[in-house]
């Protein structure tokens, strides 16, 4: 007897019901996992998306409230007046004419400055000898040089948006974690170079360490190869005093919710730097 996943007719019907939204619960999840593994199934879904999309296009576009873009920009850590890259006016196009693709300059698929930085740092950090302090120091010294090597900036400018970047070592001195946040952003990106196992009931927790060694809690961060966490305030306030960053394991659901002091051991710790040009100090009156 033929299994349903081998029947072209069954797959076509399932693809149609999936796109229509009538495939529910476990059936929907099983179909999604099959779709991820089978290009032929994904093809059928793409066909149905194109068919039923015509029904969506029969609806007149609705102009979003102007505040919606502001919310999105804030959440993404972008200035609300971020300029748009020129795009085809899909929203304004006639409803029946989405298929023809207008000729336009193809957008090159290049990684952004942050991806290039992280890639460069990853390559540079790989052979660094063990030792958290050494790694932290190397990271702190290397960051500006990596920037200049990867993206020679115009005078007074950097290609990467003004950002805080931390390079943290694991407890055994291996390259551990790269932390980045735009200067005025409200989220922090974390790339785990060395994976860490988080026990059940605990979470990774990010700390700021100032020049005097005092710690300030930032917040819990998810564990994963490349994750993001929200900040309670703009990065400029959260990381302003940071000379180092550290990550500990803290209990989930403990009281107080935000711990006052870090737990027993640093899972990751290393230097944090401001990646933007600071104007030189004005000469003191009468000096020189």
């Amino acid at each position, binding site marked *: 007897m033929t299994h349903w996943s081998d029947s072209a007719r069954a797959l076509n*019907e399932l693809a149609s019901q999936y796109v229509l939204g009538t495939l529910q619960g476990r059936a929907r999840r099983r179909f999604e996992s099959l779709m991820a593994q089978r290009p032929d199934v994904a093809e059928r879904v793409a066909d149905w998306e194109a068919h039923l999309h015509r*029904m*969506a296009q029969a609806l007149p576009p609705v102009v979003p409230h102007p505040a919606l*873009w502001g919310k999105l920009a804030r959440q993404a850590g972008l200035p609300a007046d971020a300029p748009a890259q020129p795009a085809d006016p899909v929203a304004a196009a006639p409803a029946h004419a989405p298929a023809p693709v207008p000729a336009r300059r193809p957008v090159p698929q290049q990684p952004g400055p942050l991806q290039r930085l992280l890639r460069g740092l990853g390559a540079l950090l790989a052979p660094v000898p063990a030792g958290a302090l050494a790694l932290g120091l190397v990271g702190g010294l290397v960051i500006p040089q990596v920037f200049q090597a990867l993206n020679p900036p115009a005078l007074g400018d950097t290609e990467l948006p003004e950002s805080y970047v931390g390079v943290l070592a694991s407890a055994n001195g291996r390259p551990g974690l790269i932390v980045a946040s735009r200067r005025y952003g409200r989220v922090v990106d974390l790339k785990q170079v060395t994976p860490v196992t988080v026990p059940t009931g605990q979470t990774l927790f990010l700390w700021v360490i100032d020049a005097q060694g005092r710690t300030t809690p930032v917040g819990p961060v998810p564990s994963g190869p490349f994750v993001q966490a929200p900040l309670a305030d703009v990065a400029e306030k959260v990381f302003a005093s940071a000379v180092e960053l550290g990550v500990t394991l803290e209990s989930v659901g403990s009281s107080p919710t935000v711990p006052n002091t870090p737990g027993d051991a640093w899972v990751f710790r290393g230097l944090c730097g401001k990646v933007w040009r600071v104007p030189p100090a004005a000469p003191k009156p009468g000096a020189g």
Partner: protein
Amino acid sequence: MDTDPLAHLIQRVAQRDGAAFRALYEASAGRLLAIAQRVLDDRGAAEDVLQEVFMALWNGQSRIPEVCRAPLAWLTTLTRNRAIDVARKRRPELPLQWQGEDGEEHSFDIADDSATPPEQLQGAQEDARLAHCLGCIAEEPRRALVLAYYEGLTHLEIAERLARPLGTVKAWVRRSLLSLQDCLQGGSGMAT
């Protein structure tokens, strides 16, 4: 997919390109909000859905599949699925129709004075081929199809709304979809 400018924008958004994010929003938000609002019948909730969809693209949680012929259609599916999830969570567990202690039939169904989607389709004539293909489907199966698409109703909810057996509704939806597919694929010579 590679020649579609929206596909490039979506890929760049996944790389945290702020200008591409803004451009993608400007190019697609109006269309996506229209479908979310149609499913949810709630402007605020629809804008919340739109926000979730765009942030999922920005955070890399929603990635454009390798097989994607029409990126706007893929975005529409993402938005519609999210809106349907929200709508299903909000719906009361009570059936739309029930029998009271006095034996009287009651119904939550309220007549909508606005034009129904098929009427909008027929009236606007924005997509002649789609309108033609929908017109080839018998009235009740077509109603079942548009209720599923525009309101995100499940088979059971459609059965309750139309007061028809569940099996009948399932068969209607299945046959309507296949009929639509045949018509749209085979109707290349039709007026558009």
